[in-house]
C-alpha cells in the first residue's frame, strides 16, 4: 500500500507499538497481559510496517531471521521453568526477588518464562506472515 499517510503513520506506530508490547509483557501475571499478548502486539507492529513498506524493507529492519526467535524463546522459557530445581522445588514454581525493581516491578522466574513466550510468539507469527507474503 503506497499511501503517504499510512506510511508516515506506520513509521511512528512501529516504535510505539513495540513499547506498548513491552508494557503489556511486564504488566502480565497478576493483571491482564503477559508474554503471549505482548508478543502478538510486537508481531503486529512489524506486520503493519510490512503492509506500508513491503516485505523487503521490513526484513531489513528485523535483521535476524525470526525463525531463530522460536528456539531461543523456548530455551529461555525452559530455563525459567526448571530453575526451581536448583533450590529443590518442583518445576514452574515462581521464584521471586524480594524487592520490586524500578519501572519493571516484581522480578521472578515467571517473568523470564513470559519473556520466552514473548519471543516464541514473535518468532512464529513473523515466520508465518513472512512465508505467506513471500508466496503471494
Amino acid at each position, binding site marked *: 500500500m503506497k499511501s503517504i499517510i499510512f506510511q508516515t503513520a506506520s513509521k511512528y506506530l512501529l516504535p510505539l507499538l513495540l513499547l506498548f508490547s513491552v508494557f503489556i509483557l511486564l504488566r502480565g501475571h497478576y493483571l491482564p497481559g503477559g508474554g503471549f499478548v505482548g508478543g502478538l502486539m510486537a508481531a503486529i507492529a512489524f506486520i503493519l510496517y510490512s503492509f506500508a513498506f513491503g516485505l523487503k524493507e521490513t526484513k531489513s529492519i528485523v535483521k535476524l531471521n525470526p525463525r531463530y526467535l522460536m528456539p531461543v524463546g523456548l530455551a529461555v522459557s525452559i530455563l525459567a521453568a526448571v530453575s*526451581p530445581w536448583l533450590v529443590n522445588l518442583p518445576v514452574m514454581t515462581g521464584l521471586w526477588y524480594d524487592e520490586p525493581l524500578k519501572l519493571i516491578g516484581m522480578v521472578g522466574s515467571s517473568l523470564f518464562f513470559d519473556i520466552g513466550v514473548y519471543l516464541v510468539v514473535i518468532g512464529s507469527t513473523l515466520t508465518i506472515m513472512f512465508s505467506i507474503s513471500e508466496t503471494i
Partner: protein
Amino acid sequence: MNNSWIVLPILFQLVSAVVLLLTWGNIKIQKIVSILLSAIGLGIGIWLFLLIYNHGIQVTQSGNWPAPFGITFVADTFGSTMVLLASIAGFSVSIFAAGSMSRARLRFGFFPLLHFLIMGLQGAFLTGDIFNLYVWFEVIIISSFVLITIGGKKAQLEGAIKYVALNLLASIFFLIGIAFLYGLTGSLNMADLATKVQEIDNKGLINVTASLFLVAFGIKSAVFPLYFWLPASYHTPPAAVGAIFGGLLTKVGVYAMVRTFTLIFAGDVFLSLILSVMAALTILSGALGAMYHRHLGKIFGYLIICHIGFMMAGVGMMTELAIVGTVFYLVHDIIVKTNLFMVSGLILKINGTQDIKELGGMYKSKPLLSLLMAIPLFSLVGIPPLSGFWAKLFFIKGGLESKEYFLIAFIILGSFLTLWVIAKVWSEVFWKDAVNLPKKSKGIFFHELSSTGKWVLVLPVIFLSIISLYIGFGAEHIVSLSQRIASELMNPASYIETVLSQKTIEP
C-alpha cells in the same frame, strides 16, 4: 514420594526439540544430534522406570500448588513403563528416519517435530490431571498433523484431512467430557476425581460423561465404529512416520482409556457391556479389512485396529487378569507395530513397491533379512513362545474366569485371522517367485546405499526384534511387571493417597 525430577523425560524431549530447531536446515548435524539425544532420552526412560520399579509411585506438583488445585505429575508403574516404551520407539524411529527419509522431508523439520511428538506422549503418560492430559493430546495431534503432511504429496494431504478432521472431533468430545466432569465434581485432578465421582448418586449423568470419554478415546485409538480415519491415512506418510504413528499414537488412546476407566469410572457396568461389544466388532472389522487389502501399509493399518480390539476386550472384561493381558499386549504391541512399519519401509526400499501381489522372492534374495523380518511378523501372530502369545493367554484365562465366552470366541477368531493374514504376507512377499523386481521408483534403492546407510536402516529393526524376543522368551519378567501394573490399576487407593497427600514444599 515427592520427586520433582520425574518430569525430566518431558523436558528433555523439549530441550532436544529446541536444540534441533537451532540447527534447522543442517540435515547432517540434525541426524546425528537427534540420534544422540534420543539415546539419552532412552537412558532417562530407563532411569525413570527403575526409579519407580524400586521406590514406588513418585509425584510432583508443578508450580508447588498442592494436589487438587495445581497440575500433578504422577509416575506410577504403568506411566513409567509407557514412558520407557515411547523412548524405545522414539530412539529406533530416529535412527530409521535418518536412514530412510528423503532430504526434502527432513529439511521441513522432521526431527524437531519427532521430539515434540515424543514430548507430548511422555507428558500424556506422566500427567495426573485430566485437563493436562487433554493438553498433551493436543501437543501430540498438532505435531502429528505436521508429520503426516510433511513432504506434501497429494495422497498424504488427502489422508491428513481425514486424520485431522476426526482427531479434532475427538478432541471436542474429550473437552466436553472434561467440562461435564468439572461441572459434576469441581475438580480436574484424576486422583481427586476418583474419590469424588464415586460419591455422586446420579449414575446416569456419570454414564453419559463416561460415554463422551469413550467416544473421544475410541476415535483416538481407532475402535469400531470410529476407526475409519486410520486405514485412510496411516499408509500415506513415509515409513518412519508410519512407525511412530502405528506404534504409539493409537496406544495413547488405549492408555487414556485404561487410565480413566480404572481410576475415574471404575466399576461401571453399563460401559463394560458396550466396551465388550465394541471390542468384538473391532477385532472382526480390523481382521477382515487386513484380509482384503494388498498394500502392506494398509494391511498393517487394519491389523492395528484388530489388535486394539484385543486390548479393548481386556478393558471390557475389567478383571485384574484381563488387565494383565491388556498391559502385556500394550507392551508387546508398541514394539512390534513400530517394527512392522519399519519392516514395510525396508521392503519398499528394497523392492520399490508395497503391493504384496507384485512383491516376492525376498527369502531367496535376502535370506538373513527375511529371517529378521520374520521375528516381528510372527511375534504379532503370537506363535509360542513369541511375544503375542502370552498376552492372549491372559485374555483367554481372564475371559474364562469371568465367563465371557463370547469375547473369547472373538479373540480366538481374531488370532486366526491375523495368522491367515501374516501367512499370506509371508508367502506372497517372501516365498513367491519375484517378477520384475525391484520396481522402478523415485527414491534410492537399498542396494544402492553405502554399507553405513544399510546398517542405519537395519539396526533399529534388529534392536526392536531383540526386544520382541526378550518379551517372548523373558515373558516372566513382563508378566510380573504387568501383574504389578494391573494390581495398581485395579486398586487405585495407593495412587490416590500418594497424589493427595503431597502438600506444598517449603524451600
